[in-house]
């Protein structure tokens, strides 16, 4: 912890010195400006240009069943919301300079024994061709995409000093044979696997702490009830002594579960421990409460209350104290989700029967509408790095999962068939570095 503080102070100092120097000496060499651009990139640039050059391949052709490495990296760069991709067949300094590309990625693919490919991946400084990251993966082609995700997260770490989300996952609901089932895929929609296989509806999946498994709702008892399933484990019912449990939200610090339970038509928030199976009422309020969401460090919770008639978003302390109303505009604001940076919330608002996604500050100010005029848009979930929001939309006819930047730009669809709804983004995977 101490180390971190020192490092932060140092970089702040470095930036202010560098900025000072830049101001005094506008004709400073390119290389030095490179360094400045990297350090303060977050605040100076919305996106950072990056060059992507196809990897060299062996003379004996590889039969590609997957996209090629540079194609996977291009999609990662576009989805990340952090980069402006400048594609080039080969290293081209003139092009890169013109497009303000200070770094580029490329590599080399060679065939190994058996099915494996050896993939050498590099991040270079364009001007100097200094290598910033070099990494080698030996994988069968089916695992190439995930290897490229890993490399891309190293690129983000090196250029942004932050963790990327290329190796994270999404859980969502997918209709199969007309029945909603819970599925998990990589953040880009690939490598999908089915988690529930029930004859009754499964829905509302959220990630357990450490991405150990999922909590979700199932209707096998003819009533909505929470269950959890660790990956590779068996499904277990949660809090069977409570009636109609749903809207799960996992405490990111303790792993406890905050959720709604409806008894005799009244809906309240409860907090429960998944290992001990115990749960208690979280707050004693006259209104109905649902859709809880934790702040990044679990000190406060967002929730929806109908105390004013329709649904509006409120915030309170983790002990149920200090309740404040957050949303005031419009009559239907629901299912808030707290940004990992802690400063904003994303939520779904309904106007004239159409749902759209908004963000606002914690005091309800600075409202930004992210989606507009494109079907229904709902269920926003933040990427763990806080740069992106995944959501469900029927803008293309059927409900599919999309990813956009947190400002609403760069909308990309990541599922293609069937009906897919209710995405929730995983936490970071800790085994990465």
């Amino acid at each position, binding site marked *: 912890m101490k180390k971190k503080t020192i490092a932060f102070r140092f970089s702040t100092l470095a930036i202010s010195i560098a900025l000072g120097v830049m101001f005094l000496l506008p004709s400073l060499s390119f290389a030095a400006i490179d360094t400045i651009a990297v350090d303060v990139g977050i605040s100076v640039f919305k996106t950072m240009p990056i060059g992507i050059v196809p990897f060299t391949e062996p003379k004996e052709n590889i039969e590609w069943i997957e996209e090629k490495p540079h194609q996977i990296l291009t999609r990662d760069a576009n989805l990340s919301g952090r980069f402006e991709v400048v594609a080039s067949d080969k290293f081209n300094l003139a092009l890169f300079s013109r497009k303000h590309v200070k770094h580029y990625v490329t590599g080399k693919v060679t065939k190994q024994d058996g099915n494996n490919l050896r993939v050498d991946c590099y991040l270079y400084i364009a001007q100097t061709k200094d290598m910033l990251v070099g990494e080698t993966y030996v994988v069968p082609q089916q695992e190439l995409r995930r290897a490229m995700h890993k490399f891309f997260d190293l690129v983000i770490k090196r250029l942004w000093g932050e963790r990327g989300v290329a190796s994270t996952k999404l859980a969502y609901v997918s209709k199969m044979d007309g029945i909603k089932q819970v599925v998990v895929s990589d953040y880009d929609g690939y490598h999908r696997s089915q988690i529930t296989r029930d004859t009754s509806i499964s829905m509302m999946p959220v990630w357990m702490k450490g991405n150990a498994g999922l909590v979700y709702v199932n209707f096998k008892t003819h009533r*909505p009830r929470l269950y959890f399933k660790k990956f590779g484990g068996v499904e277990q019912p949660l809090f069977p002594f409570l009636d109609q449990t749903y809207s799960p939200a996992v405490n990111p610090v303790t792993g406890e579960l905050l959720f709604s339970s409806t008894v005799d038509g009244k809906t309240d928030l409860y907090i429960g421990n998944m290992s001990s199976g115990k749960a208690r009422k979280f707050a004693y309020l006259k209104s109905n409460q649902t859709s809880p969401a934790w702040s990044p460090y679990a000190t406060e919770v967002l929730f929806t209350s109908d105390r004013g008639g329709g*649904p509006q978003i409120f915030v309170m302390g983790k002990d149920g104290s200090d309740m404040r109303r957050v949303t005031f505009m419009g009559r239907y604001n*629901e299912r808030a989700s707290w940004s990992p940076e802690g400063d904003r919330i994303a939520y779904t608002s309904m106007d004239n029967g159409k749902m759209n996604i908004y963000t606002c500050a914690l005091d309800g100010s600075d409202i930004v509408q992210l989606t507009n005029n494109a079907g229904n848009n709902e269920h926003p979930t933040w990427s763990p790095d806080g740069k992106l929001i995944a959501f469900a939309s029927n803008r293309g006819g059927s409900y599919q999962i999309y990813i956009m930047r947190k400002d609403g730009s760069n909308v990309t669809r990541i599922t293609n068939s069937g009906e897919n709804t209710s995405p929730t983004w995983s936490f970071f995977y800790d085994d990465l570095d």
Partner: protein
Amino acid sequence: MMNKLFKIALVASVVGFALTACTTPEPPKTEPEAAPAPEAAAVQTEAPAAEQPVVNADSLAAAKAKEEAERLEAERARLEALINQIMSEDVYFDFDRSELTEKAKELLAQVAELLIKETRFSITIEGHTDARGTEDYNFTLGAKRAMKVKEFLAAYGIDAKRMESVSYGKEAPKAAGESEEAYSQNRRANFRVNIRD
């Protein structure tokens, strides 16, 4: 009284028929099973009492047994008709509201009369919403609707122990599509009937 009941049953069945006829033929598979099968089976289990003919007065006993069987069959059919009637009497709501409309109250009064007569019936009240809005909030809205129905029936004199309420939110629509027509059919509370012995 009976006449009015009959009329409502008729209207309900016609509406029901019209609905199944004009919506997509594909059954809403996502809908959790609410089939009357278990209840009908429960009624049928009473029938076997009509066996064991007496050896000496063969014909007389046989006639009696037949009579008894017919009586039970008639009773079973009557109960089934009542159950079907209650299950077809959906109560509709306005958008994002859980208050009972005058029409809903009229219908519920009929259901209450039936429940007062048939004391062995217990019911599950299911609250539903249309497709608009979030899954989460629609669960609470469906729960509020089911509760309003339960409260009305309780005020009418039905023992709360005979009633259970559950919300399906927007997960079990009875009409498909995104029209106001479909929405208005889906904003409802409906009943499942169980028989206690």
